[in-house]
Each structure stands twice: as structure tokens, then as C-alpha cells.
């Protein structure tokens, strides 16, 4: 099975919602790393009789390859020591790598584990531009998955200056330059203006129209500017937004205000669960949030589900991590990153007997279960913030099996669940096709990855084959076969090969008139020379725009 040029996957029930295929038994043909319509008779076959065939999973929002992740790894030696990960035995004698697990595993182990779950494309959702070189290096050491990252821009000094002077067009040019210079895939906003507020002593911004005093700019202006930039540049993925007030009671108000501020514009709101709290005390804000999302087709979200157990919060949102540190007493990292953003890390334990954790768990499920359009509501745990990506199978089971969900609900602290739609009884069960949408077809479409998330001719040959199992969690945790760009990576449930993945990035054009002012800014305030700033020599060509 080594070095397959051709492969016919025979007899599986195919779930390929992009192409309107819902469990039909049919062959999937692969040639030279791509899905093709047909193969000649006699092509090698893989028997998937009785099994379920989907495209490889696509993770739209994870934290796996960044300087912040690495600071989190360093902070948690006790977790690594408890979970050694010897090198897998690969079939072709390739030097497999050992590593360690925990909530933030080492890079090779991360790649192997994603592949082991049937995920073949992953994005790191938050990279400080000045640290981009580091992310590319970590991705080089994260095999089996195609990957990229989003560049943090919502608190960038130069951008804030441009917005303050009303230079929206120049802001777009700057965003384009930053994406190209860092080899990023999309524009990310974290707590617009709030990180600069944290760094400059204002501490935070709590509403969409509170002014960042250092710059005279509001979160609203930042959101509008970068949403427009992404759309006008024709980026494959719209602006990816982590709203203000993450984790605060009552924050659904600012989340809804942010969505309204961008009405009519394409935008993705990330880890919505952390932004869907009613107020003034703790309660669920899932219903109004999903009413808005359901009726606005230009918006999408990923959920950021909380799963009970240990997690590590890693975010550019410095002020929220400080508060978490103060309230939990756990160890805390804060790194202010020059002219661009911040970084905060606090380990956390989500306990089912803790009222707030239980509420968070319930809200995440409500977002999924109240969704009218699975194409715009993506599965994520904001790994490792709400839980590890390894908990995706257990989450899928909660969505597909209301009995399991109901039993779990009985075990959790009910104190804050009054008025929760979940507690009132949501009977919906996701179908396999809906799972295929929220774990691959949907995120691929939202990311603008036309060759991912489906199995039509021309698609990348990233395929996952599951053995049917009445235990849904076990079924999704242990795929029988995983194929990455035509290479059989997981065979009979075992990792057998670990090919390098592709870098997914964009390089939009911009008006050169941007450069003199930007160079002047670098000269005045940056500690890295303008010519040394861009990352060069990225292995793969940018995605054409």
C-alpha cells in the first residue's frame, strides 16, 4: 500500500454533503493525491464495505503551532510527564518521533493525534505577526496535517493609527502586507482594542463603543475596518473574530452588538460559547445568539465547546487571563508582544460539579442544537481552551445521541441552568451527514478551501473511513483508515505513515504607497528591521486569490 498512485475505496457509505451524497454506497477513486471520477479496472482497492466514508476533518480554530502554545507547553511539564508518547512504529522505516501529551502536546504528537482522529487540515487561530517565523517552524514539525494560521491584527499599533486617521483603504493595504509578510491565511481579531487597553493601563474595553483612549478608536471601528479589508481583498476566509468581554457574564450583549455592527458583511465569530452568557448573573444567552446567527446567512460561528476535564487557556486576550488567574489562583503567564498583541495562559479544570463549567458545557450544546444551518456552525473546542481536540469524538456523541446527553445532563451542577434551553429539553440528534458538515464540509467552505471537506473530483484525497460502531464516540475516536493527500496514514486503526503537510497561506496584493509610511513606523518604533521582518522561503505557494 506504499506510495499509492491510485486507490479505489470500495463499498463504503459515503457522507459527502458538499456533493449532496448522504450515506450512498459508492466508490471513492483517488489518483495522484486527488479524488477522480473514475479509475481503470484493476486499480488497487481498499475494502470499506459496511464502513462510513467522509472527507478528512478540517479544524477551523485550534491552538497548536504558535509561540503562545509553546509557552503553554513549557508551563505544564507535569502534564507531559504524566503522558509520554513513544514514537509510533511507521511502516516504511521513516524516523517517527516521540513526544508528550497533556492539554498541549508536543508538535509531532499533535500531528499524529489529529491524523489519528481523521483530521487532515488544521489552523492555528492566533499568531502574533512578529512570531510568525516560529509558527512556520512548529508547523514544519507537525506532520500529517495541512496547516496554516491566522494573524492577529485587532490591537496592532500601526493599524490602530491608520484607523484613527480614518485611513480605511490604507488599513486594508496594511492587512494585506501583514498576511503576505507572515505567511498567514486569514485576519484574526482578538478582543478588538482590549489588548492594547490592557497593555496601556486602561485595562480593557467592555463595550463596542468604548474608546481606546491611547488611540481614540473603538472596537466597532476595528471590526468594521478589518471585516471590510478581508472581504475587499477577496480572502478565502472572512475576518475571524474573538469578541470583547470573553468569559464575562452578560457578554452576549456585546457579541450581538458586534454581529449587528457587521450586518451584511461576511464574518466568522469564533468560540461563540465563550461569548454567549446572559446577564447580569450567569445564565445562558444561547437562544438570542442563535436567533441572530440563524437569520443572518453572512455570519458563521464555531462553538468552542467546553468539555469536562483539564484544559489550558491560551489566548492573546491578556486581560481575561489575568482575571482567570486571580479567580482561580492557578499559575499564569502574561506576555505583552510589541506593537501587536498579547498572550495569556492559565491552566484550568472544567468540573461538572462546578456551576459555571456546567453552564458553559450546556451553552455550547445549545448553540449546536439550536442551529438552523449546520454549514455555518462549526465544531470546535477552541483546543485546548475548552478542552482537547481529542474530545471531539465525545462531543460528536453528545450531539448524535440524546440519551447519552440526557444522562450526562443529570450529573452536572444544575444551579445556573434555569432558563437553559438544554435543561428544558432539546431532543435534536445530529445525523451523520450533519456531523460531516460541522467537522469538514462546513469549515472547508467557510475557509474557502475548495479542495477540502468533500470527495468530488478534484478534491484533495484526504479521506477518513470509520468502522460502524454503536458507540459513536469510539467510532469517531478510532478511524479504520485515514488517507492524507493520497497517502494511507492510518491503517487498521494504526498510524502507519506520517507525511509532511502543506502550508496554507495567502499573499494578497496591496498598494505600494503603503510602504514609505510603514517603513518610517518600523524605523521609529520596531525592534526588528523592516527588511528582516517578513518570513521568507515558505515551502508551498500561496493559495491563489
Amino acid at each position, binding site marked *: 500500500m506504499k506510495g499509492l498512485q491510485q486507490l479505489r475505496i470500495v463499498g463504503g457509505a459515503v457522507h459527502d454533503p458538499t456533493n449532496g451524497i448522504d450515506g450512498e454506497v459508492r466508490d471513492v477513486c483517488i489518483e495522484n493525491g486527488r479524488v477522480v471520477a473514475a479509475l481503470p479496472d484493476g486499480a488497487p482497492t481498499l475494502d470499506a464495505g459496511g464502513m462510513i466514508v467522509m472527507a478528512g476533518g478540517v479544524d477551523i480554530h485550534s491552538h497548536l503551532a504558535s509561540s503562545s502554545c509553546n509557552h503553554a507547553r513549557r508551563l505544564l511539564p507535569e502534564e507531559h*510527564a504524566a503522558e509520554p508518547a513513544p514514537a509510533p512504529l511507521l511502516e516504511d522505516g521513516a*524516523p517517527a518521533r516521540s513526544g*508528550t501529551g497533556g492539554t498541549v502536546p508536543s508538535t*509531532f504528537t499533535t500531528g499524529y493525534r489529529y491524523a489519528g482522529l481523521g483530521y487532515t487540515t488544521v489552523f492555528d487561530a492566533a499568531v502574533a505577526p512578529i512570531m510568525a*517565523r516560529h509558527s512556520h517552524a512548529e508547523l514544519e514539525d507537525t506532520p500529517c496535517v495541512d496547516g496554516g494560521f491566522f494573524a492577529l491584527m485587532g490591537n496592532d499599533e500601526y493599524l490602530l493609527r491608520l484607523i484613527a486617521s480614518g485611513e480605511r483603504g490604507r488599513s486594508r493595504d496594511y492587512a494585506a502586507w501583514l498576511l503576505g509578510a507572515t505567511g498567514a491565511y486569514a485576519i484574526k481579531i482578538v478582543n478588538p482594542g482590549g489588548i492594547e487597553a490592557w497593555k496601556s493601563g486602561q485595562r480593557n474595553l467592555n463595550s463596542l463603543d468604548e474608546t481606546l483612549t491611547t488611540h481614540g478608536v473603538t472596537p466597532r471601528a476595528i471590526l468594521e475596518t478589518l471585516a471590510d479589508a478581508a472581504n475587499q481583498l477577496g480572502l478565502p476566509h472572512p475576518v475571524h473574530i474573538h469578541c470583547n468581554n470573553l468569559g464575562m457574564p452578560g457578554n452576549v450583549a456585546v457579541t450581538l452588538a458586534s454581529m449587528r455592527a457587521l450586518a451584511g458583511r461576511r464574518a466568522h465569530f469564533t468560540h461563540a460559547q465563550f461569548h454567549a452568557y446572559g446577564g447580569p448573573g450567569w445564565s445562558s444567552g444561547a437562544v438570542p445568539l442563535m436567533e441572530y446567527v440563524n437569520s443572518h446567512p453572512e455570519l458563521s460561528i464555531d462553538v468552542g465547546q467546553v468539555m469536562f476535564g483539564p484544559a489550558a487557556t491560551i489566548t492573546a486576550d491578556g486581560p481575561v487571563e489575568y482575571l482567570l488567574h486571580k479567580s482561580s489562583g492557578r*499559575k499564569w503567564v502574561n*506576555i505583552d508582544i510589541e*506593537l501587536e498583541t498579547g498572550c495569556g495562559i492559565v491552566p484550568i479544570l472544567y468540573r461538572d460539579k462546578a456551576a459555571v463549567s456546567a453552564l458553559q458545557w450546556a451553552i455550547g450544546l445549545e448553540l449546536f442544537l439550536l442551529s438552523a444551518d449546520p454549514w455555518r456552525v462549526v465544531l470546535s473546542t477552541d483546543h485546548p481552551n475548552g478542552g482537547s481536540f481529542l474530545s471531539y469524538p465525545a462531543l460528536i456523541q453528545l450531539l448524535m445521541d440524546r440519551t447519552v446527553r440526557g444522562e450526562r445532563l443529570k450529573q452536572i451542577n444544575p444551579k445556573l441552568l434555569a432558563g437553559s434551553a438544554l435543561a428544558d429539553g432539546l431532543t435534536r440528534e445530529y445525523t451523520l451527514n450533519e456531523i460531516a458538515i460541522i467537522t469538514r464540509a462546513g469549515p472547508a467552505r467557510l475557509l474557502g478551501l475548495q479542495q477540502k471537506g468533500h470527495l468530488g473530483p478534484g478534491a484533495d484525497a484526504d479521506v477518513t473511513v470509520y468502522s460502524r460502531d454503536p458507540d459513536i464516540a469510539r467510532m469517531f475516536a478510532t478511524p479504520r483508515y485515514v488517507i492524507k493527500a493520497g497517502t494511507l496514514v492510518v491503517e487498521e486503526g494504526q498510524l502507519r505513515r506520517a507525511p509532511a503537510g502543506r502550508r496554507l497561506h495567502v499573499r494578497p496584493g496591496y498598494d505600494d504607497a503603503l510602504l514609505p509610511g510603514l517603513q518610517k513606523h518600523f524605523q521609529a518604533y520596531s525592534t526588528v528591521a523592516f527588511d528582516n521582518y517578513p518570513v521568507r522561503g515558505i515551502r508551498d505557494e500561496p493559495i491563489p486569490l
Partner: protein
Amino acid sequence: MTDDRVEQVTCLGCGCGCDDIAVTVREGRIVDTSPPCPLGRAWFGDGSVPWQVLRGGQPVAVEEALTEAAEMLVRSRGRVLVYVGVDLSSQAQRSAIALADLLHATVDTATSETAAAGLLAGQRRGRATATLGEIRNRADVLLFWGVDPVLRYPRFHSRYAPEPPGVGIPEGRAGRFVIAVNIGADRAPPGADATITLEASEEIGALSLMRAALRDSRPAELPPPFKQAADLLPRLTGARYAVLVHDAEPTAEPRNPLRVEGLIALAQALNGPTRAALCSLRAGGNRPGAESVLTWQTGYPMAVDYSRGYPRYEPGLRGLNRLETGGFSAALVVGSPDFSAGTTSALARIDTIAIGPRATQASFNPRLAIDTGVAGIHDGGTGYRMDEVPLSLRPPLRGQRSTVEALGGLVKGIRLLGQPA
């Protein structure tokens, strides 16, 4: 005779990571570096390094040396020490650690004997820090705790703080309040706006009292040095952005390991009333690079033992210190570390391979030695600044063999021998 001038070269002479160096090259030799900095000039020198491959002191073809090195290391699998030096790009460090994994080796780096106390304290507590540009652009109060950067980090003052103007500090030095704390023989900068002097024995108590003052629980009566220390608190809490600067590298003066823990705790606690960061000065070469690569590949920043087939963290059992007792039968030294006499003589008793800049001049007379280029002088790639910002290296000279190439050849040789059982 025309000179070549290479601009914006990154210097790894100390941890400042200045990337604005103009290097003048004449006939393959570096003849000038600007701006002039004593550490930078010492780092670059004239750029000449040996380009030899030696076996038992005699020249040998590189392919032959790599084949023999592979055989030697595979024979000793599970009993190999891999030392990863600092004059290497992160790409070379990455290859060296890949080899260690393949060989079930024990990894040691410069960190174990230098900045380990700070890393361990950071693993217990976390830390509040900032990149150097953030310090330059924001710090309005700077406290130098037992260090004057001018001695070992010559351009820290002019590039980062307190001298240059920044976004929030348009006046430069005049816009910053500088506090010097002398501790025993560890002197802080002269010319500070406030200076206090502590005996080494008073240091930890003073740090504790500063934290007590922050919690409004300082005792009413204090002896003079402690009172002075506690009295610094309003300056720090009154800052918009306070930065504590200390030297994470050892000095001749013995140091209480609780210093760094106390500073971490103080910097974190100051983030209640204001914003604050701890700046840890790091020495030259790509030290944070080795820590960073080790962390992403293993989860641990130093002292990793792969002998059981997966990374184990042994910060209390330094590889080099176990040469006598650790059962090692071979050592692969990557880079050109300056080993102690004890280490040198212990290495003489086992198979040794040196790959790196000036490998053939290593004090321990390696059985096999392959010279390669110095990171940032002949080798490109990435080097990490003391604040862990990854910098692009722009080598002004062309080398004959990069460390990554040599290590790649070794990996290939090991693979040709097949995966040992």
C-alpha cells in the same frame, strides 16, 4: 579592492539580537562591523573558521566521517549524550534534537547550567513578561535588580531601555524613572534616578517585603535597607508600565535561586495596581532557540532524556554532569561549547563526535570532527532573541558546509543502517 557591505545583519553576540548591523567584508573576511559593539565584534571576529573534517586528528572525507559517526552512534543507541550548543540556528538545533530522539539519547544544553533556575520558577508560577520592543515603547519605570546591562548586553540601553523614545515614551530617557538596586557585588547602572544597595544576604527578604508592601502588610518598623526596598513600591505601583530587569545568566557572584522566583512573583503581583513585566537578560548565541525547539518537540525546555524512547524531564540530573556515572558510551556534541576541564577529561573516555563551528578545534579531541558554519555568520535560518522573538539570520559570509547539512547527512547515515532494535 572592493568591500562588500551587508546591511541589517543579525548579531548573536549577546541576547539583545540587534538586527541592524552593517558588516563589511573584504576577500572573504569581516573587516568591520557597525555600530561598534565589543560583544558584536568579538562574536563576528573576522569570520574565519576552520573547514576541516578529521578522524583521530587526520583529514578524512566528510561522507566517510558521517558513515563512521552513524555506526558509532547506532552502536551506542540508548547510551548517547547529545549536547546542543548555542552557536547554531534553530534549524540546526531542530536536527540535533531529532537525532537525539532517533538515538534514544540524553540531551543537554547551555541552559542547564545557566538560566535553569528561572525556567523552573516559571514552571511553578508562570510569569509576567514582555518583548523588548514593548519595554522600549511603554516602560516609564525601570528597576534594574543587581545588573547593569552595559557590561554584558552593551546595546540594551540604547536599543530597548531606558534611552530610546517609544510610542508611549516620546521623551526617551527623560520620560523614564530608573531605579538601581545594587546587590552585593552585582551592581546596577550608575546614574539612576534612585539607587539602593543591599547585601546579598538581604536580597530575598527585601523582595518579600516589597510584595508585603504591595499587599499593604508591611511591618511598621524596618531596618534601613529593607525600608528603602519597601519604599520603592509607590514608584512601581505609580508607574503606567513598570519593568523589572534582571540577569538570567550567572555571574561570578553566587546567586540565591530564590531571587528569580521573588522577582517573578513581584512582577506578577504588580499587575494588580498597574501593569508590569519582568525582563530576563540572556547571553549570546541562540540559547532561547534551543529551549524553544526542545519545548515544541518534547514539551520540556531543557534536560531531556530520551533513553526510554520518549522524552523525560530531568532538570535535576544534568547530562554533562553524569558523564562519569550515566553509562554513556558516546557523545555527539553539536556546536562549539566551552567545556570545563572535568567535562573534557570525562569525554576523553568515550566515543566522541563533534559537529559544528570549530569542531576540529574542540578541547576534548573528538574522535570525529566536522567543521560547519556559525549561525548568523555563515549559516542562515532563525535565531531567537532573549525575549524569544525569532529573528531572521542574514549570514554575511558563505560557508563551506552548514550544520543542518552535516546533521542531515548523519540522519541519512543512521537510516541507512536501519532502525536499530
